[in-house]
């Protein structure tokens, strides 16, 4: 036992007693890494390594760490427990027809895991030693821009086209209708004019509505609105009994007069 400890601690002054350097666990990337580091001290091919010796070294390392109350990650303790189990299996005679892998197989599996980790580390090393892009080898420092010649391809849908056409055409037409509306004769205006007309006509003679109205319509385009409003106002005045309207036939000129007193008979129509 003590001989093994000494061989494990080679290079360190044995007089110190405290295996401080050995338990520098922070430098290891987990229990496998620690095992690999310990195995290297055996200076033999991993295939020929003594797993029993390795297990002993590991357990001593853990024990030393515990003596100086170093907190160890659970991984390390799990590995220690497993190695202690493996060690006891390796030392005891193999029970006949045991279930599961034999102790030898378990030892080989561990050796293989160590070999595999060592192999991938070696590969990682070689990978990182390859000439690396932008560190060792470089691309063109001043690449030349490839000029782009753009060919526009225009899109438009039939809907866009038709909407554009319709909107343009009717916006102008509807806009002019809107302008005319501003000069429209309101019903109130028409009624006021008609009442004045009736008041002015002190006789009960028939007058031609169209002729009178023309005086109020300086712009021929307003004729329709004046006529329509006046007609509506006239109908209202007839209903109220203020005036009478007469028309020979459809679209013929309209005649009006102040409604005579009820005693008198209807005046004769003017001869047309």
């Amino acid at each position, binding site marked *: 036992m003590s001989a093994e400890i000494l061989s494990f601690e080679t290079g360190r002054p044995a007089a110190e007693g405290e295996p401080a350097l050995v338990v520098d666990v922070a430098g290891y990337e987990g229990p496998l890494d620690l095992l690999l580091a310990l195995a290297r001290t055996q200076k033999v091919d991993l295939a020929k390594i003594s797993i029993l010796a390795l297990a002993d070294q590991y357990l001593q390392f853990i024990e030393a760490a515990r003596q100086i109350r170093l907190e160890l990650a659970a991984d390390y303790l799990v590995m220690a427990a497993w190695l202690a189990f493996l060690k006891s299996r390796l030392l005891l005679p193999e029970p006949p027809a045991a279930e599961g892998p034999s102790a030898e197989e378990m030892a080989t599996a561990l050796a293989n895991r160590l070999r595999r980790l060592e192999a991938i580390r070696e590969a990682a090393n070689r990978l990182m030693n390859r000439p690396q892009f932008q560190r060792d080898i*470089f*691309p*063109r*420092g*001043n690449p*030349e*821009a*490839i*000029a*782009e*010649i*753009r*060919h*526009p*391809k*225009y*899109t*438009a*849908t*039939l809907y*866009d*086209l*038709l*909407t*554009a*056409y*319709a*909107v*343009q*055409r*009717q916006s*102008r*037409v*509807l806009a002019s*209708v809107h302008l005319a509306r501003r000069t429209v004769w309101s019903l109130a205006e028409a009624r006021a004019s008609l009442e004045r007309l009736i008041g002015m006509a002190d006789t009960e003679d028939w007058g031609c509505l169209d002729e009178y109205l023309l005086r109020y319509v300086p712009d021929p385009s307003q004729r329709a609105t004046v006529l329509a409003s006046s007609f509506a106002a006239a109908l209202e005045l007839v209903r109220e009994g203020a005036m009478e309207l007469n028309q020979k036939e459809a679209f013929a000129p309209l005649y009006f007069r102040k409604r005579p007193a009820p005693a008198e008979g209807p005046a004769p129509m003017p001869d047309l």
Partner: protein
Amino acid sequence: MPSLAEKRMDDAEDAVTGPEGRPEELRLLEALLFASAEPLDTATLAKRMPDGVDVKAALARLQTEYASRGVNLVRIANKWTFRTAGDLAWLMTRESTETRRLSRAAIEVLAIIAYHQPVTRAEIEEIRGVVTSKGTLDVLLETGWIRPRGRRKTPGRPLTFGTTESFLSQFSLEALGDLPGLEELKGTGMLDTRLPTGFTVPTPSDDPALREDEDPLEPADLELTLAPHVEPEGGPAGGDNEDES
């Protein structure tokens, strides 16, 4: 693994050094000039070279070596850099198509041309109530959907415009007569049903035969359809007051 050509070159050249029969400084210069983001002057290059290298002579040789290649070593303002050979500039372009939507003004002018063809620019403006910008007609000519088709027999002999076959295919129309008329436009709600009775929509026709009031185009006019940037016709008013901002 040098090529056969290089091997023969090696045999022919006895004076050169280096494993491949080429002075090592040429490799160094190649690498430095290639990787540098900027042209390098002789002094800067010399500082990076091993002692005793005649940098100027090496650069001259490198320039000669690359003279016939697709990439040349050129000196610009006393600095050296690799550049694509001048005669290969065409190779450095990439053609791409990009889809663009027509502007509203262009669509509007196109619609007027489609329905009212043959139509002059002045007539388009009369219908739209706005001056048509030169750019709008340019874009439409570029689309290939309109073409100048003749000249109106009126003072100034303005160009008349009409639509093309590619206009039909763009809008999936079998014939121009398939464009909806007044009643159909009203039916789809695009036209207001309260429009005054005098309102008409023409029956469009793209018959290539010239109308009675049209003269054929002159030889110079035909170039318009090839050259997209064109002043098709002097507008009735100055072109300053345009319909696009």
